[in-house]
């Protein structure tokens, strides 16, 4: 690591970020440095984000987070307040695409030469020059209604037909607009327009202390509440330098794996059941998911695995009878799910719909920086639980599930294998559960902490900047943010009626992207 950095003329300037190496470059070299690190050294770009440091040093900060073995490497630069511009990273590293557009919208930092400098988060109704994450923008500002163009891509030609879908859909899902250009039934291009219900979480978190921030974090994406809480708490604990007890680590791991099981069961039922109309799997898949949600109700007092993971450990200890309920519930739920899955897989008609549908090629997955089951189904060996071990994973039997075909079936098989993996982890932890307290005091004051968690959807990263005990900037990077652009790659070549199937096989969160 150090020789690699030395070769690039970088050095670990300060130790301001707990548990990560931090290098600074001047803005002119930012893009080339990231490009070398990604392309020559093969470090995946996990996050690119901006900070408003005008009050401190009259500049904007731009930070790239890359994974190197089990360490995080931060490469930061400063951009002058008057003219925050830098050379776009996207020109050479595609994974930076949405991050740079996000920073352009939210901070007004211009990535020069960005191949697609359209707005991303801010729709037509936001006036020009509005940058909500700048410190001088009040969270409760009322803006005049504007009409700034937000053009979508068009394809011209004989018989080319454009289908707008959403933002309101026939099912009960969140808002998202998809624009298909099709020739007959074949998709030529597919583009999404998201960010319809921006919650302003990042802005609202600023100035909050940990206890009042946690409810926001748990509601970033309702289906990954435990993972989001864990990532946030671990980042805070890194700043506070507090060590969580081993029993709390075990319980946290169990909760996150239970969440993974819940959602993988839902995905299997939803993809096969609703996606291709093999309705039995939907009916029974949702019944089993309901069993898991009731287990959550019993353990956490709510149906979404919320409220248990808090800074410093767990909110309460689990009693022996709670553990027994977990043991018996996951046993029968797992057995039933396997039975259903095998039944579906023994049907040629089902496999015929899943195979070769929505292929994500390995090189595309790498270029876009895909994460989670979507990446692993395309042959990318990436799993935070192994690569950046946290909680009790170092002591658990963990096998990274991989497939190489990259189609809907491959993504389902990865989920099916991960379900077995989660079961093995939970059973192992229930057997070897540590004893002792579940909570330690955690009062972070000032500093920067980073934490990654492998949620069921993929790599989830939180970077927490704290100042005097309150949050200065909290970056939440939900795995959906990395995977949404994949649709442009997965869709084309498929037929329109197969798109819902591709969509369900990724099952991305609108809410997690639209912070």
């Amino acid at each position: 690591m150090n020789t690699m950095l030395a070769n690039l003329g970088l050095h670990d300037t300060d130790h301001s970020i707990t548990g990560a190496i931090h290098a600074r470059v001047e803005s002119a070299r930012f893009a080339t440095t990231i490009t070398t690190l990604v392309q020559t050294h093969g470090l995946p770009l996990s996050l690119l984000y901006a900070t408003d440091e005008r009050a401190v040093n009259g500049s904007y900060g731009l930070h790239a987070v890359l994974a190197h073995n089990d360490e995080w490497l931060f490469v930061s630069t400063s951009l002058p307040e008057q003219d925050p511009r830098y050379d776009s990273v996207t020109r050479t590293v595609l994974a930076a695409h949405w991050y740079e557009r996000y920073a352009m919208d939210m901070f007004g930092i211009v990535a020069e030469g960005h191949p697609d400098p359209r707005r991303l988060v801010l729709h037509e109704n936001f006036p020009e020059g509005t940058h909500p994450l700048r410190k001088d923008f009040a969270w409760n500002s009322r803006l005049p209604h504007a009409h700034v163009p937000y053009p979508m891509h068009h394809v011209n030609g004989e018989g080319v037909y454009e289908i707008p879908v959403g933002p309101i859909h026939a099912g009960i899902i969140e808002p998202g607009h998809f624009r298909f250009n099709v020739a007959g039934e074949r998709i030529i291009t597919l583009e999404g327009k998201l960010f319809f219900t921006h919650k302003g979480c990042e802005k609202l978190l600023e100035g909050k202390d940990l206890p009042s921030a946690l409810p926001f974090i748990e509601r970033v994406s309702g289906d990954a509440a435990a993972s989001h809480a864990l990532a946030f708490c671990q980042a805070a604990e890194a700043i506070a330098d507090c060590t969580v007890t081993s029993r709390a680590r075990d319980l946290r791991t169990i909760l996150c794996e239970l969440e993974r099981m819940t959602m993988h069961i839902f995905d299997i039922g939803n993809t096969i059941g609703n996606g291709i109309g093999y309705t039995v799997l939907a009916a029974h898949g949702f019944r089993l998911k309901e069993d898991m949600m009731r287990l959550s109700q019993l353990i956490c007092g709510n149906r979404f695995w919320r409220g248990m993971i808090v800074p410093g450990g767990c909110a309460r200890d689990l009693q022996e009878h709670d553990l027994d309920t977990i043991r018996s519930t996951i046993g029968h739920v797992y057995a039933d799910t396997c039975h259903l899955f095998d039944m579906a897989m023994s049907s040629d008609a089902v496999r015929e719909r899943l195979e070769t549908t929505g292929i994500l090629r390995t090189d595309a997955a790498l270029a876009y920086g895909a994460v989670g089951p979507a990446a692993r189904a395309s042959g990318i060996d990436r799993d935070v639980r192994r690569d950046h071990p946290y909680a009790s994973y170092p002591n658990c039997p963990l096998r990274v599930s991989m497939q190489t075909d990259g189609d809907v079936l491959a993504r389902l098989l990865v989920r099916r294998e991960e379900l077995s993996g989660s079961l093995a982890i939970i059973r192992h932890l229930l057997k070897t559960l540590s004893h002792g307290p579940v909570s330690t005091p955690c009062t972070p004051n000032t500093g920067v902490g980073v934490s990654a968690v492998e949620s069921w959807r993929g790599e989830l990263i939180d970077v927490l900047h704290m100042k005097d005990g309150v949050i200065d900037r909290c970056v939440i990077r939900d795995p959906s943010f990395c995977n949404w652009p994949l649709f442009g790659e997965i869709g084309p070549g498929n037929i329109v009626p197969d798109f819902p199937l591709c969509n369900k096989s990724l099952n991305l969160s609108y809410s997690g992207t639209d912070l």
Partner: protein
Amino acid sequence: MSLSAFLIQGIVVLLLAPFSTGCARLFKARLQGRSGASPFLPYVRFATLLRKEMVIANTTSWVFHVTPIVVVSTSVFAATSLPLLSDAGAPGGLDNFIVFSAILALGSVFLVLGGLDPGTAFGGMGSSREMTLASLVEPAMITTFAAFAVVSGHSDISGMLNVGGAALLQYPSLIISLVALGLCTLAENARYPVDNPATHLELTMVHEAMILEYSGASLALLEYASSLRLTVFSLLIANIVVPLPLFSAALSLPSVSVTIAAAIVKLVVAMLLLAILESSIPKMRFYRMQEYLSVTYFIALAGLVFSLIPLS
């Protein structure tokens, strides 16, 4: 067919139509482990829809407004003219199989126009798919009935029932045609594996996409028309397999009541079979439809060819 037989059949089939859809839904729910709604729920739904206000796009023309009436009329025509309860032929040979196919095609054409008329993306998509399917289903349908016509020596469907029931064993080629008729029925009624009547996924719809812009009474008419069409086809196939008991032109209370009871049983059995089919297979990929419908056509053609070969 006497006027009274004609009226009784029409009224009974028209009344039974929502029940058959309700049955199919109930059986599907039960087979999937759900408790399901009452089979009489569609009556309530139609009554609710009829009372609701209609929201109609400004871009529509008269075609959009006429469509529900034309479509429901074609289904009512089929329900009254075909030998569903009475084996007496319709007056003026109106149950001729060519007339029947043409009337169904008329309904499809208007449905397609109604889907295109508002100029929305989904309507156009559904219409384009419906046209693709219809152009493949119609030949298969005509070929199937042609086989029955050849064997029975009648071109009206009531005459074809003479070779139904036990007589089918005498003409094994007709069993092939019956299979083709079953496959055509699934495609004509937008059921599995061609279309999913229960989906909420706009992008995969065929029939539902075309009627997406309709609301209120128009929607009620269109949904009723598809219920009726399903009932007509189910009773028709049931009558070819079991052409008893049907009342004749000379009406008597016992024969009419037995026929009505038998029709209900036939419908329930048909809906159960449909529910089993729809619960055990997934919907086919849209580009596999032409394979499904080509197979249907060739089965129908085989039935016709074997019917033409003298057996003795």
